[in-house]
């Protein structure tokens, strides 16, 4: 069902438009289809309009999203809902989850380091105002899709090593964004907060006892995002492996399909093996987090395999396509760019290995 949805509503022309247009606008039709299909509420409690599903269900969606080159504003919105669900209380849930569940609002998140998702120490600072509100200051880097999202869920350090998070409209007074344009037109931004005011208590995520967010909880949110994006990378790998097999079967040289050459078959087999490891490891991570664990070990292993596999598969796909995959009109590069970008943000295999070291 999801693959049919992406085939119909996320054509390459849409992917290219979001890649190249400046400024760009929300993919409204795709967004509505995903909302109608219940994607945004998949994981959220039924009382807030969600389906009450498991994180694994969202994992299956993310894999298809990777296959279909789904715009990452969808991932950001899902991550934001997950963060509010895991970090907020009843007031925050009631305020945000219904409109997130049915796709009325979009969001992006900034709760972990863009280079290393294990770093949950905020770069923003927050101070309490005498009148009961909060003021945010500082800047954060590499926030995805801040040009499209309605809100950002961002963490900030309050005095006394207390970490809080806030749901802030990107149109808030004192908030500015500067583009940090990545490979393949992937849009991230530096967001500056010049004493941005937060008044609504429902926009404040402050832990169960109001004494700040626990590092463990932030880490679980970060791990969930990393693990889900690892499944996106698996989807990228699956799509590219399929394209590559199809191409080598159709492309004839020396009077036979290049698929009949052992060298080509071995490259395909290597892709398959890398993908098998990545798929299992990433699904396992999402499953463990869904069971309520922080699952840093599984998250690290999933990311190490998914990042490695997605890069290997896309680069070897270029090798098997030759010039025919190198010209931009054949679209292969769209997958290669997504593989390199998503396997870097939050940390690739090098960074994820340090999470595993820290667990030992």
């Amino acid at each position, binding site marked *: 069902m999801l693959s049919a949805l992406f085939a119909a509503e996320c054509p390459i022309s849409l992917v290219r438009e979001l890649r190249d247009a400046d400024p760009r606008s929300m993919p409204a039709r795709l967004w509505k289809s995903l909302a109608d299909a219940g994607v945004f509420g998949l994981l959220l409690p039924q009382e807030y309009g969600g389906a009450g599903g498991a994180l694994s269900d969202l994992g299956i969606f993310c894999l298809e999203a990777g296959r279909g080159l789904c715009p990452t504003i969808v991932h950001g919105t899902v991550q934001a809902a997950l963060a509010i669900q895991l970090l907020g209380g009843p007031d925050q849930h009631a305020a945000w989850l219904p409109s997130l569940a049915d796709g009325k609002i979009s969001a992006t998140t900034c709760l972990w*380091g*863009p*280079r*290393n998702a294990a770093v949950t120490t905020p*770069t923003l600072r927050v101070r309490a105002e005498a009148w009961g509100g909060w003021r945010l200051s500082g800047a954060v*880097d*590499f926030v995805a899709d801040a040009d499209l999202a309605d809100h950002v869920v961002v963490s900030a350090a309050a005095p006394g090593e207390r970490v809080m998070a806030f749901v802030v409209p990107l149109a808030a007074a004192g908030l500015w964004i500067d583009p*940090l*344009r*990545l*490979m393949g*037109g*992937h849009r*991230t931004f530096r967001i500056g907060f010049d004493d941005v005011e937060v008044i609504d208590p429902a926009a404040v995520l402050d832990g169960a006892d109001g004494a700040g967010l626990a590092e463990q909880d932030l880490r679980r949110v970060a791990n969930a995002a990393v693990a889900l994006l690892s499944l996106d990378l698996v989807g990228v790998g699956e799509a590219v492996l399929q394209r590559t097999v199809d191409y080598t079967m159709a492309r*004839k*040289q*020396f*009077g036979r399909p*290049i698929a009949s*050459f*052992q*060298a*080509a078959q071995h490259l395909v087999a290597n892709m398959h093996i890398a993908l098998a490891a990545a798929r299992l490891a990433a699904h396992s991570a999402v499953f463990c987090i869904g069971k309520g664990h922080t699952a840093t070990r599984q998250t690290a292993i999933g990311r190490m395999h998914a990042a490695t596999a997605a*890069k290997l598969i896309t*680069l070897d796909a*270029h*090798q098997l396509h*030759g*010039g025919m995959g*190198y*010209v*931009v*009109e054949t679209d*292969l*590069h769209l997958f*290669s760019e997504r593989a*390199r*970008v998503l396997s*870097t*943000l939050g940390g*690739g*295999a*090098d*960074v994820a*290995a340090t999470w595993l070291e820290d667990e030992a």
Partner: protein
Amino acid sequence: MVDFELDAAQDAWLAEVRAFLTENVTPALRSELAEHGQELPDREVAAFRRRIGERGWFGLNWPSEYGGLGLGAVYQHLLMREFEYWGVPGPDLTVTSVAPMIMRHGTEQNKLEFLPPIARGELICAVGYSEPEAGTDLASLRTRAVQDGDEWVITGSKIWNSVANRATHEWLCVRTDPSAARHRGISVVMVPMNLPGIEIRPLYAWSGYRTNEVFFDAVRVPVGNLIGELNRGWTYITGALDLERGALTNAGDLRRALDDLTELAGRPRRDGSVPLQIAGFRRRLAQAEADVEAAMLMGYQAASLLESGVIPTVDVSVEKVFSSELRQRIADLAIDLLGPDGLLEYRSPGAPEDGKFERLYRVSPLMRFGGGTNEVLRDVIAQRGHGMPSYGR
């Protein structure tokens, strides 16, 4: 045995090349290269090319009878490595691949007509080998030349003609005897690009570079533009491909990339962390250092062999496979090491080294399949290097 030390004359040559580059690689040239790549009719680039030609450096290893300086292949290698290191265009395939073939196999008329303008940098060839259906299997090419009086009439198309839009000529591989076995009916013809019936269509690569598809519709060329003998072209171009491989892979660009990356590794990233403080990156940089050194030695060895009159088929295959895969490893290491900073798009604000490594990642797939795929070259190494049997490609 390779002499691992340059002699005094070669040292002096290297110093001369560096002095030339210091003097002539101006900010204006740099900015034109960054702005237009190889796309537009060039000003600074053309002037730079003329200055190379004035020094005779396009013919530096040609015999003096053809307007060359008569210097050895090692001199050519050192010059090209240095140009690659500086990231500026130097002797291209016209000089390193086409001209030697003309010298070896061309008629006296071919030599007189084409070599002097190549030496001056005025004749620039697009190399017309691949066709949409004839890539790795080059011998299946279908572009035809039929003799009509004192002209060849050429019809067909070529692809991946990277410089066709600014070339003066096409070094064109054509089928001249359709009844002969695949390899035997092929000839090479020099085709001026300004003739009627030639159409050039751009193709854009992931690297951002332009390449072209070139169409020939009954293009008429004097019979004298046939290179060497009729139906002997396959022998010529396979030799040219070996030279091309040797010339394309001198590792100067890899040396530069690693120098730049090592420098960047000591600087703080946007989040304040310094890659060199992480042991894993020091280890990977050390591995890259060892690999770049090996690639440099391979290039030097190939040049030494060429200088002794051998076309080092197996050695240049080794060098090409090794350095093209190394290029991809360095590009990947660079983005790992720089983190998200390394993803910042080429020439976008705040990108380290102007996004050079983001682009290198997109450039690096090319040389794994271009100029002979690494799979075919591995066959060459096993079969020609070790006498292992062919499996009948």
